[in-house]
């Protein structure tokens, strides 16, 4: 299995972990709009993880070949927000703004 694909998957999983670890009582203090953004972020990332895992299992490297660099770049960007942004609210907003690229790439591979 391509290391690049695995690295992308790891980045997405790490980002999901950070979102999952965000305490509910902290999120409850946010505006409704930001709470929705948090939910959408977590949902879309875990949805893409599921899809990538299924493709990896059935189609292997070939399916990712054309887009693996873009996938890695998009996943690394999301992970960088979760690693470097200490303000949870800003992290959620930044991830939300960058998820579109990930969605597009996974749809192309899918």
């Amino acid at each position: 299995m391509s290391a690049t694909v695995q690295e992308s998957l790891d980045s997405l999983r790490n980002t999901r972990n950070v979102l999952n670890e965000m305490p509910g009582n902290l999120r409850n203090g946010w505006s409704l709009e930001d709470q929705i953004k948090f939910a959408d972020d977590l949902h879309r990332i875990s949805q893409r993880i599921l899809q990538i895992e299924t493709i990896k299992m059935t189609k292997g490297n070939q399916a990712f070949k054309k887009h693996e660099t873009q996938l890695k770049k998009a996943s690394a960007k999301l992970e960088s927000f979760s690693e470097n942004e200490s303000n949870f609210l800003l992290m959620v907003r930044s991830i939300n703004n960058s998820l579109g690229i990930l969605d597009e790439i996974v749809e192309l591979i899918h």
Partner: protein
Amino acid sequence: MKTKVTQPSEKSKQTLSSGNALHVTLTAILLSGCSNSTLVKSHSLSASSAAYTETVNGLLDETINHVIDVDSKELLRTRIGTNPKQMLKDKNKSMKALIGEINNLRQQISLMNNYFINLQALADSTVKEDAGVNLGRISSRIQYMNNRPRSSDDSTRIDKLFSEKEEGYISQMTSMIVGSFYAARIETALRRDAPIIAKQMLIQEKQLKVILGILQNRLETANRMHLTDKVIIPYAAIKDPSFNQDEWVSNRRKWFQLEQAAPIFADVQAAQKALRLAWEDILRGKKDIGAVDIMLTDVNDFLGTLHALDQSRKDDSYLSHPLGE
């Protein structure tokens, strides 16, 4: 809190015992040209295959359960999202696709186990004209599954998973057969099936690697959720009147126990590889395939422990800490 853990090798002992009833011993396969010492030390490939099949089935069940559970917990966290109904629908669709593929792997493993059972039946058969029709049918079915989708030009065909080196390995399988060891009908079957079985085993190795990655990830995710919701948040909420010290101590202990469950993953892959090497040994007329059984014992221990811990966590309504979710 009950944390009933399956006794170390009970499950695998039972498995091996039932596998022994099937026993394709090499004694039966090696119908001619074998020394007595070879026969005494020989192990049963079909017994190992049956044990392997049961173990991997257990592993696949655990994977499916954990994937569903983690996903459901996430859905509870994301219920406030833009369109909850659509989110649930999307997740169900993706989940079905993944579970479908896991069950395809289960079917492949079961088919391969049937192959070994029928290889034994052919070796044991006293009917002179027995051409091993069942064995041929199973082998054709495995070959069919090895070549999905049908078009060899399709870039998503399952055998595109292989590197050139692996292709070379598969094509060399027939040359491993030591013809003089076997009765003619067994040799014919082995010559026909050697590359088919090897290819299927390689496919399983690759898919199992992905499955193990998924299971490991979901265990980690579930542990992180447990740590956050049941250990960190309650501990930090020093003014919470509902804080239960005993429950917190128990939850923290569980987290440490679950953290220790991971290192066995390598053994599952090692068992899979050992089974493939055992197939090579059959072709070469060798005999000692005990390595598979030893590793499966450890894997079964792990699955028993995992299941018991998971059960105990569920008993404690793990999802519902008031400050967590």
